[in-house]
C-alpha cells in the first residue's frame, strides 16, 4: 500500500493535449511520481472505471479533470470522480470553459449527425445509418453513450474546487501548481483560477504598443505582420488584450495572434464582451460628422465584415462557459 497521496488525471471530451502537458514536465515527472501515486489515467495506464468505483469516496487527493462534458459517459465520469476526489481541478480550457469542442454549441445535434454520417463526401451510407444509444446485433445489444445536445463545462455539471486555464496549460504552469502543492503551500480560496496570472497576455508580450487606432482588420492570411509591433495595432485580431496571462505569450512570439486559450483575465466575466469593448476602442471610425446614417451603417458593416466569425473568434475556447447560449436545438 502506497502512502503517497493519490492523483488522478482524467479526460472527458478532449484531445489528450492536457496529458501531454503533464508528460512534458520531462524529468520533473520523476519528482511528481515520488510525491503522488497516479491511480487513474486511461491514457497512461490500465486502471478501469470499475476500479475507481471500488475506491472509497474522497480517497483520491487530487483529480486533474480535462475535457468538456459532451456525452453521457463524460457526465458519469465527472460525477464519479467528484465523489472520489478531495480536490477536483478543472484542468485546461475544455473543462474550464468548454474549449474547442464547445464551438459545437453554435450548431444543433441534428446538424452534426447529418453532416458526419449523412452528407460528407467520402461517405458510403445510402441507407442513412446513424449511431444510436442502443443497437440490436445478432449476438445481443450494444450500447453507446448519448451525445448531448450541448457541451457543458465541468462546473456546470459538478462542484469544482479550482480552475486551471490553457489549451493546454503550459507545462511550466503545471509544475508551478504541483510544486506548490507538494511543498505544502496554502492554496487560494476554493473557486480560484490557479496556474496563471491575473492580468492580460499583453503584459507578457514583448511587442511594442503605440496606442494607435486601426482603420480596418486583417485576417491572418492577408498580411505578414511586423515582428516587433503590437499585432492588434497592425489590425490583426489578437485576443491577448482579453486573455489571462501566464502562458508567456508564445503565439505572438511566433508572429501569430493570441487566440484566447487562457480565458478572461481576473475579474472579467466574459472574454468576448471584453474583446468587443477592446476592439471598439481601437477602431478608427474616421470622420463621421456630415456622413449620412446609411454611409455610417455601410462603414460599420464593412468593418464588421473584416471579422467574419465573431462568436468563433471571441469565444474560441469559451463558448460553453460564456454568456452566449448557442444555437437552439
Amino acid at each position, binding site marked *: 500500500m502506497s502512502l503517497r497521496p493519490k492523483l488522478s488525471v482524467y479526460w472527458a*471530451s478532449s*484531445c*489528450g*493535449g492536457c*496529458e*501531454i*502537458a503533464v*508528460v*512534458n514536465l*520531462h*524529468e520533473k*515527472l*520523476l519528482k511528481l*511520481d515520488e510525491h503522488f*501515486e*497516479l491511480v487513474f*489515467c*486511461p*491514457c497512461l*495506464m*490500465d*486502471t*478501469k*472505471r470499475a*476500479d475507481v468505483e471500488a475506491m472509497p469516496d474522497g480517497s483520491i487527493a487530487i483529480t486533474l479533470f480535462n475535457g468538456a462534458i*459532451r*456525452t453521457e459517459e463524460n457526465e458519469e465520469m465527472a460525477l464519479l470522480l467528484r465523489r472520489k476526489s478531495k480536490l477536483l481541478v478543472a484542468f485546461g480550457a475544455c473543462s474550464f470553459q468548454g474549449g*474547442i*469542442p464547445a*464551438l*459545437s454549441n453554435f450548431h444543433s445535434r441534428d446538424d452534426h449527425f447529418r*453532416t*458526419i*454520417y449523412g452528407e*460528407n*463526401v*467520402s*461517405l*458510403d451510407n445510402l441507407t442513412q445509418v446513424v449511431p444510436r444509444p442502443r*443497437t440490436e*446485433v445478432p*449476438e*445481443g445489444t*450494444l450500447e*453507446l*453513450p448519448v*451525445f448531448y445536445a450541448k457541451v457543458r463545462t465541468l462546473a456546470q455539471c459538478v462542484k469544482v474546487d479550482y480552475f486551471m486555464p490553457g*489549451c*493546454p496549460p503550459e*507545462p511550466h504552469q503545471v509544475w508551478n501548481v504541483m510544486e506548490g502543492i507538494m511543498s505544502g503551500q496554502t492554496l487560494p480560496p476554493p473557486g480560484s483560477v490557479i496556474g496563471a496570472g491575473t492580468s492580460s497576455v499583453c503584459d507578457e508580450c514583448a511587442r511594442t504598443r503605440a496606442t494607435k487606432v486601426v482603420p480596418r482588420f486583417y485576417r*491572418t*492570411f492577408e498580411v*505578414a505582420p511586423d515582428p516587433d509591433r503590437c499585432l492588434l495595432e497592425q489590425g490583426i485580431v489578437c485576443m491577448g488584450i482579453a486573455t489571462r496571462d501566464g502562458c508567456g505569450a*508564445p*503565439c505572438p*512570439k*511566433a508572429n*501569430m495572434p493570441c*487566440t484566447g486559450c487562457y480565458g478572461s483575465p481576473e475579474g472579467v466575466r466574459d472574454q468576448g464582451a471584453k474583446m468587443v469593448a477592446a476592439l471598439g476602442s481601437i477602431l478608427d471610425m474616421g470622420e463621421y460628422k456630415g456622413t449620412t446614417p446609411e454611409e455610417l451603417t455601410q462603414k460599420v458593416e464593412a468593418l464588421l465584415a473584416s471579422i467574419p*466569425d465573431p462568436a468563433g473568434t471571441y469565444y474560441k475556447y469559451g463558448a460553453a462557459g460564456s454568456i452566449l447560449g448557442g444555437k437552439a436545438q
Partner: protein
Amino acid sequence: MRRISINPITRLEGHGKIDIFLDEHGNVANTYFQVPELRGFEQFCVGRPAEDMPVITNRICGVCPEAHHMASVKALDRLFGVEPTPAAKKIRELFYTAFFVTDHTTHFYALGGPDFILGPDAPPAERNILGVVKKVGIEAGKQVIECRARNHHVIQMLGGRGIHPVAGVPGGWSKAVSAAERAEIETIANQNVEFALFTLKVFDQIVLGNPAYLDLVLSDVYHHRTYSMGTVDEQNRLNFYDGKIRVVDPEGREFLKYDASDYAQHIAERVEPWTYLKFPYLKKIGWKGFVDGAESGVYTATPLSRLNAADRLATPLAQEQFERFYQTLGAKTVNGRYQPVHHRLATHWARLIELLYAAERMQELARDPEITSPEIRKIPQNVAGAGVGCVEAPRGTLTHHYVSDERAILTKVNLVVGTTNNHAAISMSIRRAAEKLIQGFAVVEEGLLNRVEMAFRLYDPCFSCATHALPGAMPLMVNIKSQEGETLKSLRRDG
C-alpha cells in the same frame, strides 16, 4: 449468449470499448470494437474562417497536433491557391521530422514496447516502462526522456508552442529559422540519429535475438493480408510530409496511386449504428465486412503499411535497415521490390526504421542552407474555394478536406484521420486474438488480457508519449457476462 466486456480499453488515444460474444459452445461468436466518442469537428468547423483550421484541428489530437496542423495548412495552401516558398516547405518538413522522432521513440519504449521488449508472458508487474528500463538499462530510460525533451524543444522553437503549434499559414510558415536555431537543431538531429541506431540495436538484441519472440511476430494470431497504404515521393520512396498516396495489394502490386485531392474517388467510409467512428475502405474493391484478402476493401495505414507501400527509403542508414527488415522476415522480391510483410507485430520494427529515417531526414534538412531563408511565406491573392491536405501521421495517412465560400469561410469539412483508416483492421485483429484464446468457454486468462490489448496497441502509437516516467500499476478488468448481464466470471490483472 455470454459476453465479455473490456471497458475502457486503455493506453490508446481516445476512448474505446470491446465486447466479445460467446456462442453456445463457448467459442467466440463475434467481437465488437466500439468507439463511444464523438466531438463533431466536421460540423462545428463550418462557418469558421478557413485560416483558423490549423489551430482548431490541432485539438483533434493533443498527441499528434503536429500532424493535424500540417494536413490543415496543406489543405489551406490549396484552398487559397498558393504555393508555399521552398524554404517554408523545408521548415515544415523539418518541424515534422522532429515530431516523428519524439512520437515513434516514446511509443517503442513506453507503450507498445513493454509487451515486446519484455515479452507478452513476462509478469504483468514488469510489463511497463520500468521493466523496460530494467532490461535496457537506466541510461536508456534517461535517453528516452531527453529525446522527447529535445525534440519538443525543436517543435516549440519552429512551431511556436510545444503542444498545439501555431506557425502554419497558407503559403508558408509564420516564423523564420535563425542561424543559431539551425545549428542547435542540427546538433539535435545528430543525437537523434545516434539514438535511433541505438534503439534498433536494442530491438535486435532483445527481440530478434530471441527465437520465442520471433515466433510470436510470425504467428498467425497477428497475421492479416490486407492492402497497404502510404505516401511516396516521385521515386516511390516513403515521405511523411508530401507526395502521392500509394496503395499496394496484398502481393505488393501497385493498386492505386493518387493525388490527395482525389481521395474521395478511392476511399469510402462505412457507418455502423453501434459505434461513433466510421470504417473507411477501398471504394474500388468495396466493403465485404471484417475480412482480409485481396477481395476485401480493408486496408491499413501504419508504419508497416508505409514500408510495404514504398519501394525504398530515401536515407542511407534507414534503407539498410529496410533491406534487412524484409530479408529477415523472408519477403520475396517481385518486379524489383519486396512483397509486403503482413505480420502485424512487425509494425513495431517498422516504426523504428521510420524513426531512423525521420532522424536522418531531419539531419539533411537542418544542413540545408535554404532552411534559414527569410522567404517563408507567400500571401495568397485569391480564394480557390476548396482544398485537400494529406500527410502521414504516425498512425496513418491523414486527410483534411475543406470547402469554402469566396470569403474563405468554411462550408464543408471532411476529415479522414490516421487511426480511422485502421478501424476495420483493428476490429479484425481483436477478433482474431479473441478467437485464438477463447475456446469452449476456456479463457486463456492473462494471455487473453494482454494479447487482445497487443492487438490494438500495435496500431496505436499515439499514447506513446505517456508512460515513460509514470510507472504506475497497470491492472485490467474483464467481465464475462451472460446475456442477461449477470457476471459469470471476473478476470483481473493487477499491476
